[in-house]
């Protein structure tokens, strides 16, 4: 009987609905996966992918709808239920105890008596060999690299005997090589009869790894298609809901002068490792310099060093020939260098979540004006202006910004930076977590700045966007520049190669030297 059921769907969801407060996150979603199949769950940010998967893994509870596992209806009330049903979730943000060893993380939550370390270690090694994983069970998680941590996550669910694996954006933090390795492991699991759901918004990966694709849009399941019958264009249309030209405006560069020059910059992190390794480049007025690289290649440290938040151990940052190193952050802001960084939780760094727009406008300018008191009037006017200018949807200038939607929050952040009329605008991940329409508003804002002859540095994740938007792209890898190229005449593949450390720049140099 079990055999017969196995030939059916591993998971079948019918009309799953979930609301958060007043937000409808999932609206009657249907989804199914077979054993021995990889299903890609495709959708923009905020389309409800993660919410749906969290319900399958018992973290959230659906308001209504049915879930069938192996043909019989179930209620998944907790991660334990999910585990007992053979569902294992690998979260985008790893759910690991940093202070534990890998093996302790793996056996966490399992039943039975605690075995001797050696026994557990052997068991883990055995499983990892079956699927071609590499792991040191005795190593502490806090000493591990990102891809090692992901291996621990995968082993955690395999150790508990999961046959249905859900991976939430597993490649976001991996290099292309690590991604390829992960895909090999997934294919091996598929061969062994596992059902795999992979959540992603990277079309290329969908086409490469999945058998079928289910597309979500604004909390609804739009369609499920065989991957082999699809191409990127069709998937995008399904995802966004209308035929889109993936084109971003690209106004020509009028005049460009170098206004910020980074020379031989080296920066160390607090833990003593090199974050930025001897890099030199320049940012020019009236152009957008894109910065590409795998997450954690030194983007954040570069931003912080230019903004005066981190100390450099070597080199110089010249702004109109004046060295910015050694200046305080507020002095640098005053000179017209604006930097905004959208962190992963999206609110933590540029804005104060519990304050209204007015007080957030004040953040970088409250020191202006004499006396000990804050002058809120200009800030309020600025907030009102921005609401009109950028169509920010908010009940008022005093409503805490955490109550606004993601797109509006980022408009507030970028709007404030632009209002200060900077001559250099550095922005990192400004479209993080936004849907396509809101993203385009942000791109337009950046292009407008470019037209005003501002030097823009755009640090992004999506290579397609980087190629469309920027005039030049600088690629970072392990804190080094592996290439600075004109976007005309470059392909995504070339950039991808450089992200993994293939040094195009030096190749050219070598060529030139010969």
């Amino acid at each position, binding site marked *: 009987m079990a055999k017969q059921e196995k030939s059916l769907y591993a998971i079948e969801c019918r009309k799953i609905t979930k609301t958060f407060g007043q937000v409808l996150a999932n609206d009657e979603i249907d989804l199914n996966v077979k054993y021995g199949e990889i299903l890609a769950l495709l959708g923009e940010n905020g389309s409800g992918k993660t919410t749906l998967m969290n319900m399958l893994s018992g973290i959230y509870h659906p308001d209504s709808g049915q879930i069938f596992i192996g043909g019989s209806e179930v209620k998944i009330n907790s991660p334990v239920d999910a585990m007992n049903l053979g569902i294992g979730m690998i979260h985008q943000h790893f759910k690991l105890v940093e202070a534990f060893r890998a093996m302790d993380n793996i056996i966490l939550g399992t039943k039975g008596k605690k075995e001797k370390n050696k026994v557990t270690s052997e068991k883990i090694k055995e499983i990892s060999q079956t699927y071609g994983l590499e792991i040191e069970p005795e190593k502490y998680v806090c000493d591990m690299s990102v891809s090692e941590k992901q291996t621990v996550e995968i082993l955690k669910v395999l150790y508990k005997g999961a046959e249905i694996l859900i991976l939430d954006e597993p490649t976001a933090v991996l290099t292309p090589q690590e991604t390829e390795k992960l895909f090999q492991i997934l294919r091996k699991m598929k061969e062994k009869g596992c059902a795999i759901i992979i959540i992603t918004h990277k079309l290329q990966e969908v086409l490469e790894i999945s058998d079928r694709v289910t597309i979500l849009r604004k909390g609804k399941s739009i369609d499920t298609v065989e991957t082999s019958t699809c191409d990127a264009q069709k998937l995008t249309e399904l995802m966004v809901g209308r035929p889109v030209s993936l084109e971003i405006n690209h106004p020509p560069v009028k005049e460009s002068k170098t206004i910020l020059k980074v020379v031989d910059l080296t920066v160390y992190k607090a833990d003593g490792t090199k974050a930025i390794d001897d890099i030199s480049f320049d940012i020019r007025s009236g152009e957008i310099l894109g910065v590409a690289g795998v997450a954690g290649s030194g983007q954040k440290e570069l931003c912080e060093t230019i903004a005066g938040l981190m100390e450099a151990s070597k080199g110089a940052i010249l702004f109109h020939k004046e060295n910015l190193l050694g200046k305080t952050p507020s002095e640098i802001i005053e000179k017209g260098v604006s930097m905004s960084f959208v962190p992963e939780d999206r609110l933590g760094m540029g804005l104060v979540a519990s*304050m209204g727009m007015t007080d957030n406008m004040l953040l970088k300018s409250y020191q202006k004006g004499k006396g000990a008191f804050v002058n809120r009037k200009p800030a309020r006017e600025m907030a009102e202006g921005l609401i009109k200018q950028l169509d920010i949807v908010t009940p008022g200038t005093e409503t805490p910004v955490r109550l606004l939607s993601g797109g509006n929050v980022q408009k507030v952040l970028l709007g404030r930076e632009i209002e200060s009329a900077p001559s250099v605008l550095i922005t990192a991940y400004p479209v993080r977590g936004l849907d396509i329409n809101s993203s385009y508003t942000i791109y337009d804002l950046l292009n407008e700045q470019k037209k005003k002859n501002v030097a823009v540095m755009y640090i992004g994740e999506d290579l397609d966007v980087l190629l469309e938007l920027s005039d030049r792209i600088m690629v970072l890898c392990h804190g080094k520049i592996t290439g600075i190229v004109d976007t005309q005449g470059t392909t995504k593949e070339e950039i991808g190669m450089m992200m993994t450390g293939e040094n195009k720049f030096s190749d050219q140099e070598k060529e030139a030297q010969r």
Partner: protein
Amino acid sequence: MSNGAGNRQNEPFARVVKRAELSTGKIVLLRLAAVALSLIAGGIFIACVGQNPFVIYGTIISGAVRSVMAFQGTVKVMIPLLVTSLGVTLAFKMKFWNIGGEGQIIFGATCATFFALFCSGMNHVLLIIVMFLAGFIGGGLWGLLPAIFKVKYNTNETLFTLMLNYIALHIVSYLRDGPWMDPGSQGFPKIARFDKNASLDKLFGIQFGWLIALLLVVIIFVYIKYTKQGYEISVVGESQDTARYAGMNVKKIVLRTMFLSGGICGMAGMLQATGSDITLTTSVAGGVGFTAIIIAWLAQLNPFSILLVSFLFSVLEKGSSVVQSNYGLSTDCADVLQGIILFFILGCEFFIRYRFLFRKKEGTK
């Protein structure tokens, strides 16, 4: 694999979900309901020990305000509570868990006492000002110490300030047993009563600390709400990263704010020693530093609410001493009632932000 029917029984009876933000009116109503419930619970407790709760509650209130003298007594209790609450408010606004109000009160009082004991011949007004500054700076330094370690090594401030409370306490007992022992006490360890010249003047029959405390309410309100430094404190409290990205010098702000926070607590110590006790004892703080934390939190760090809450706490404290003399219930009754009221209010805060969803409601929608 477990089947559907088995799982249904596992379904949790109730689960917690976030609710949409409540209106201010509803929040106030909810808190009042919590207070009412706690008074009922307290009433049951009083009834359990064989007293009539209405009579006891009535006595507490009348005992605190029935006469000019009683009211003066209540205000006297309130002064250190109010000032210290305002002090810790600054630190809490910054999410710096200053549990060290006790120590800052004690050390501030100790520094002020130095001048009261050894410079009592000074011009009166000048002496009072000097003692005032000594109290402020002493408390400030005692608050600065954990802040220095916090910004330098990220030392846990809750635990560190807690330790400093006891270190300050034993400094006083050292001074009391040794160098500052009253020579006229024939070996009994106590510090001499201050010279008249070194004690605070009275205004309307109460030491004039009350005036300072009231002024401080307004000053702290304005400081937090309208000054650049107050704005900085709010931003740092909300997110240090945001503050850093806005170009603020977070370390400087933390140090400065903790100096002010400790300083104000130290001032409370000075007022208590020179205005009420007219000497320095080991019980100069007497738990005020801890109660102040609760007051500040109950009042949601709003200075005017702090004024109200600390007054109510003082009524409870003063009134219960009347209950003791009239009905033989010890003054500890005040602490028990305080505890019960707080438990209810702590619980009620939850319902402002979350609500329970019960099993019946779901699935059948």
